[in-house]
């Protein structure tokens, strides 16, 4: 690996409270100096980053790469390439692949493929219950050993509270964080839209707030007075934020994230039955969207993730309720986050933290910041560059996005993984 000098960049690192115009030095895959030239440093490669930002490589808490099992939608190679183009250097895969990540062999398969692709540090969540069926605990200790950074039952709710409680206790025994995507099986059955005026008008099966808030409240009661770590992902309701906030003030070790699209879209967007807006949890009201933005700004919601769900073309070509939910969103995570800064909804520092150090802490990984000695995962951004997102130029195999045609300001021009350039913007 060559020694690299990145000159004249504005280095932004929320975790180390760093935000200044300076030079950054990389020796042998690692950051060797920020502002201070290491002894005997000789640059073999110089990147002029004048007027650009350097931020830590982005950490995405939830990205489905569809491999193994759903390769018609996408695969690890295509999706990590797309991730690199969007400044993401670390990402975490939920366990609902096919086969489910409930055995070390599946973890090994994914990690091997990711290593071959060389585009991203890929981590997995293991299944909380065998086959995600909610009946029998998975071999969590073994999954952790194989490399899983947490356990989750993905969108498959565990309806038996006794099994749920024991799963928490067992995970905690092995010091494993439990990741929850709260969605009650019965309250959300066949649902595809937020319960409100729009779903009523369009005659779509509705998903009430309680489908999310009731399981969150139940889980918070189950883990009361314990030191079990629980992360609530993909929140959609204002009320969920209140619940999380109360739990945090009561000392519970809970964290939360929201997907970037929930901070920009509402149920108004489904008015014309456009299946690109079909997501789970459903797009909710304007009031919820504002509350989610506020939750990120004040820190109740720790992180913003992509909730990347690439699909094949046919998955979205059907009447709205018959289409598959989800957005191919790995390439819009940073642009949508920066748009919140542009709109004045988030301070820059909070926005960057929510996609770098905060998700890294949730995953228990020492990445997402730029201290000397850290592996050089970073992302160079031209903050003034204006561009239009388009399905024509998307790298993800899934072209399912409602954001095609959106204008953004600020674009990734280079991404480095372990000091190696894995993406360069071509003009």
């Amino acid at each position: 690996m060559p020694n690299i000098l990145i000159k004249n960049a504005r280095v932004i690192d929320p975790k180390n409270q760093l935000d200044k115009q300076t030079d950054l030095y990389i020796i042998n895959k690692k950051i060797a100096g920020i502002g201070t030239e290491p002894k005997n440093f000789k640059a073999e490669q110089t990147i002029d980053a004048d007027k650009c930002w350097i931020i830590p490589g982005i950490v995405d808490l939830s990205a489905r790469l569809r491999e193994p099992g759903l390769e018609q939608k996408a695969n690890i190679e295509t999706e990590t390439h797309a991730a690199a183009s969007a400044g993401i250097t670390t990402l975490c895969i939920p366990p609902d692949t096919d086969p489910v990540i409930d055995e070390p062999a599946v973890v090994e398969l994914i990690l091997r493929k990711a290593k071959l692709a060389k585009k991203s540090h890929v981590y997995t969540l293991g299944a909380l219950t065998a086959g995600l069926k909610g009946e029998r605990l998975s071999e969590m200790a073994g999954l952790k050993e194989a490399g899983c950074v947490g356990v989750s039952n993905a969108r498959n709710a565990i309806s038996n509270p006794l099994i749920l409680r024991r799963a928490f206790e067992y995970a905690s025994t092995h010091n494993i964080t439990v990741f929850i995507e709260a969605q009650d099986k019965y309250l959300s059955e066949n649902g595809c839209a937020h319960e409100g005026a729009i779903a009523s008008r369009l005659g779509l099966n509705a998903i009430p707030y309680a489908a999310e808030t009731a399981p969150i409240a139940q889980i918070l009661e189950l883990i009361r007075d314990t030191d079990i770590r629980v992360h609530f992902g993909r929140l959609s309701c204002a009320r969920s934020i209140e619940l999380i906030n109360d739990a945090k003030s009561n000392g519970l070790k809970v964290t939360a994230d929201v997907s970037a699209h929930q901070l920009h879209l509402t149920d108004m967007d489904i008015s014309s039955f456009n299946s690109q807006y079909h997501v789970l949890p459903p797009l909710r009201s304007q009031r919820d969207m504002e509350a989610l933005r506020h939750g990120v700004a004040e820190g109740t919601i720790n992180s913003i993730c992509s909730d990347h769900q690439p699909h094949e073309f046919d998955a979205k070509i059907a009447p709205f309720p018959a289409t598959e939910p989800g957005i191919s969103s790995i390439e819009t995570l940073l642009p949508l986050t920066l748009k919140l800064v542009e709109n004045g909804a988030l301070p820059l520092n909070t926005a960057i933290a929510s996609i770098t150090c905060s998700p890294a802490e949730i995953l228990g990984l020492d990445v997402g910041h730029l201290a000397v000695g850290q592996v050089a995962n970073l992302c160079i951004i031209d903050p003034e560059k204006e561009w239009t997102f388009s399905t024509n130029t998307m790298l993800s195999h899934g072209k399912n996005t409602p954001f095609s045609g959106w204008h953004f300001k600020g674009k990734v021009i280079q991404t480095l993984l372990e000091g190696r350039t894995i993406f360069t913007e071509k003009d």
Partner: protein
Amino acid sequence: MVNKPTRRTDDLIGKDLWNIQLDDQGQLKHFLTIEGLGTNILNQILDTAESFAGVNESVKKVPLLRGKTIVNLFFESSTRTRTTFELAAKRLSADVLNMNISLSATSKGETLLDTLRNLEAMQVDMFVVRHADSGAAHFIANHVAPHIRVLNAGDGRHAHPTQAMLDMFTIRRNKGADFGKLRVAIVGDILHSRVARSQIHALNTLNTGEVRVVGPKTLIPKDIESMGVSVFHNIEDGIKDADVVIMLRLQKERMQGALLPSEQEYYELYGLTEERFNLAKPDAIVMHPGPINRGVEIESSVADGDRSVILNQVTYGIAVRMAVMSMTLGGNIKDGNSSSQNQEKK
């Protein structure tokens, strides 16, 4: 009259939802939902239907759509609705093809598109579509070849616009064209009813004085008030002084889980009995989109009584469907109007 909640339709509608129904001249191109159509279009449908009502009574057949091919594309079983569409098409001299496609064979979207492509290749001019998914008619209209017209014969819980228009036609024939002085109560399973949604849009577009919906909380969709209705959970209050009472069919096959304890209790609380119907205005009419569940939503003596216009609805259904077919398939509609009016005068 109770103050109606402010209608929010304008800011709620996605442009492509309703623009797709109109051509660049503002004429009806597809008929997918009442929502987004102006009073002028609805009145045009009613006026055209009025002229065809005469055709049905005397001449039976006009050559307006000779040489056109209409496909009844039914993904959900229906005999009555399909028959009236078929009769309407035949009375306009169109060729009709009936396709009943079981849902299981088309649970995948690509198959639905494939089905469309195959039929398009047979040079058809119009699809009359019924499908179990809300939004299916819009989906099809968005994907057919530009010359093909789409008529929604019911999509999921979303819309059943021809049924709503035949109901408006029935009301206009019985109560006159001034909907502003009318109080209309729609009673029953609003949640699952595409008919109710289309009726609400149609009644409000025609400036009906007051539109009420009546039913238990489990059968009233959330925030339905935003569509311009007042909600009642008690049938006595709900139909008091109504000019028109529309009873909805209790669709047993759609009931999932604990919406109602029993048909008996439903009838006790919401069934339209003689005694209850007397709370409406003395000259009130009762309507029902059919088929009726006697003793579940309505007492036989009311359904068959002299204030019941249920069978008229069926008759008018053909005229209204003829009107929409001739308007959307365009051609010599104006000549058609005058000729049919002449025929009526004979």
